[in-house]
């Protein structure tokens, strides 16, 4: 009896194992599509091993296509144009592509299997995304819970970005986290200094990346980041600008202001900086400098808990109250917002009430 069971188990396992072996071998030969050439934007050519999906192959070649779901075709972020060599549209791609996209050969990179040579088109911004190794050269305290981290780029040495974009900073595995994580932070530095990336980071209690930055990262340490990402940027019009951001949300605004100074941008701009108490204000000197250097820039902090001894020139109350009081020409203005989703929603409501049109509001919502 026992012998029978024993024999049975062994026999079935052996047969199962040998069948698995046959499958592995045949997969090796059947899935062998040889080397395939991927031509990107008619300028760059990649020589890769076929048989994988396009997203993984591109990532392996350090071309970062946005993806939130890791290839499971549930996020729809990995769209790009495949002009030649794509094969039929898969049912897994259909829900994410509308008629115009289908007609212009837009596909989901994670679903396109590379079987032969491909010709693809990637938006220029995605093409510019690289992985950077950098060194932390300075850590400055801005407030009790916000620091400015300066990173010098080592490899590649410069980053071409548009003011308003963000990078994904990699926090390596450390005591509080067993695996590496990526967190997005807006670039705060002066775009004229292409080899420096400044990040303004607020300590989030229990946050994996912020804890790493505040308690473990030292000057001289090497970190990795990739980017630049993001659509948040100044328009090319002449419309007056309203910036609204508090805390570490100042980062992209600061970067944009540097750029405005570099390009001698003459647009009228007002920056409403919302904070709780006087100790939450920072970089006031820099803002004063911008007020002097830019022809028409005004910095308006607003404190919801001013206390007794705050300067009278600060607005009192929430930033929405300050905007209501001080913004007179909302109808012509463009608004650039950076902060928590709650703050952005509240502010947009006020701006629309004041007459601003919704298409003129731009925001960066990831705080």
């Amino acid at each position, binding site marked *: 009896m026992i012998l*029978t069971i024993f024999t*049975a188990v062994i*026999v*079935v396992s052996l*047969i199962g194992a040998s069948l698995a072996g046959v*499958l592995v071998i045949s997969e090796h030969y*059947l*899935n062998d599509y040889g080397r395939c050439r991927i031509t990107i934007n008619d300028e760059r050519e990649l020589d890769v091993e076929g048989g994988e999906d396009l997203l993984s192959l591109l990532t392996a070649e350090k071309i970062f296509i946005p993806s939130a779901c890791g290839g499971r075709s549930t996020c729809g972020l990995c769209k790009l144009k495949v002009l030649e060599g794509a*094969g039929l549209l898969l*049912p897994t791609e259909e829900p994410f592509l509308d008629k115009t996209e289908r007609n212009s050969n837009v596909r989901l990179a994670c679903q396109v299997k590379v079987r032969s040579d491909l010709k693809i088109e990637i938006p220029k911004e995605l093409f510019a995304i690289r992985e950077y190794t950098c060194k932390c050269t300075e850590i400055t305290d801005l407030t009790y819970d916000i620091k400015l981290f300066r990173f010098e780029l080592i490899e590649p040495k410069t980053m071409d970005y548009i003011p308003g974009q963000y990078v994904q900073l990699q926090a390596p595995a450390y005591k509080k986290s067993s695996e590496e994580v990526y967190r997005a932070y807006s670039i705060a530095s002066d775009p004229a200094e292409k080899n420096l990336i400044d990040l303004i980071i607020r300590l989030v209690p229990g946050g994996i990346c912020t804890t790493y930055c505040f308690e473990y990262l030292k000057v001289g340490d090497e970190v990795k980041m990739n980017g630049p990402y993001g659509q948040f940027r100044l328009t090319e019009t002449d419309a007056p600008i309203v910036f609204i951001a508090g805390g570490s949300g100042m980062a992209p605004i600061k970067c944009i202001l540097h750029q405005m100074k570099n390009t001698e941008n003459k647009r009228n701009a007002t920056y409403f900086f919302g904070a709780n108490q006087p100790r939450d204000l920072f970089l006031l000197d820099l803002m004063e400098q911008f007020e002097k250097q830019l022809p028409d820039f005004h910095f308006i902090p607003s404190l919801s808990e001013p206390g007794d001894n705050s300067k009278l020139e600060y607005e009192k109350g929430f930033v929405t109250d300050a905007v209501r009081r001080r913004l007179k020409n909302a109808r012509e203005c463009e608004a650039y917002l950076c902060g928590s989703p709650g703050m952005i929603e509240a502010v947009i409501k006020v701006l629309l009430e004041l007459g601003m049109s919704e298409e003129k509001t731009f925001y960066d919502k990831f705080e």
Partner: protein
Amino acid sequence: MDIQVDSNNRGGKGKMNGASQLSHAFIVFISAIFTQNILLSYFLGLCPFIGVSREVKTSFGLGMAVIFVMTSTCLLNWLAYQYVIEPLGLHFFRFILFIIIIAAFVQFVEMVIERYSPSLYQRLGVFLPLITVNCAILGASLFMVIREYSFIVTFGYGLGSGIGWFLAIIAMAGIRQRLANDRIPKGLQGPGITLIIAGLMALAFIGFTGVLSGN
């Protein structure tokens, strides 16, 4: 619809001579298609039958795949039964062993189809790996064991069952394509009307009973 067990036909030992084996195989082949259609008489393999039979083109592809898988797995399982299960007396393990062989074989077929006809692979979608759990496939192998068919007869039986299944799904697809533009009550649309049609087809095939019984 009765299962005929012919104890005189120890097929595995090949006692009958070649010519009568062949004629037995042929009879089994014909009966597996018409009188003992594995889908319409034994109601095995209904899931993809209802799921894929919307289009003749896709049903054609799936039907061909099923014919191929059914014939090949019947033969492979016959070999496994003769040379592994019988000698070692592991009859109780036949279900597991058959399923393992079927699963591996379907995986292999998947890889081949994906390589040589990506369009068919995409059209079949999830129903290709689902052939593994198509009870008609396992059913054919088990019937082959119960009826103690010899190798040639197994070939005829597997091929015939596959073709019978194929015919049934093609017929269903043809009917459904015709019905696509007709007004069907909301509650019956889809699986409802398909099952009714399947029932009517099965009734029609009952007309073949008694013409031939493949034992």
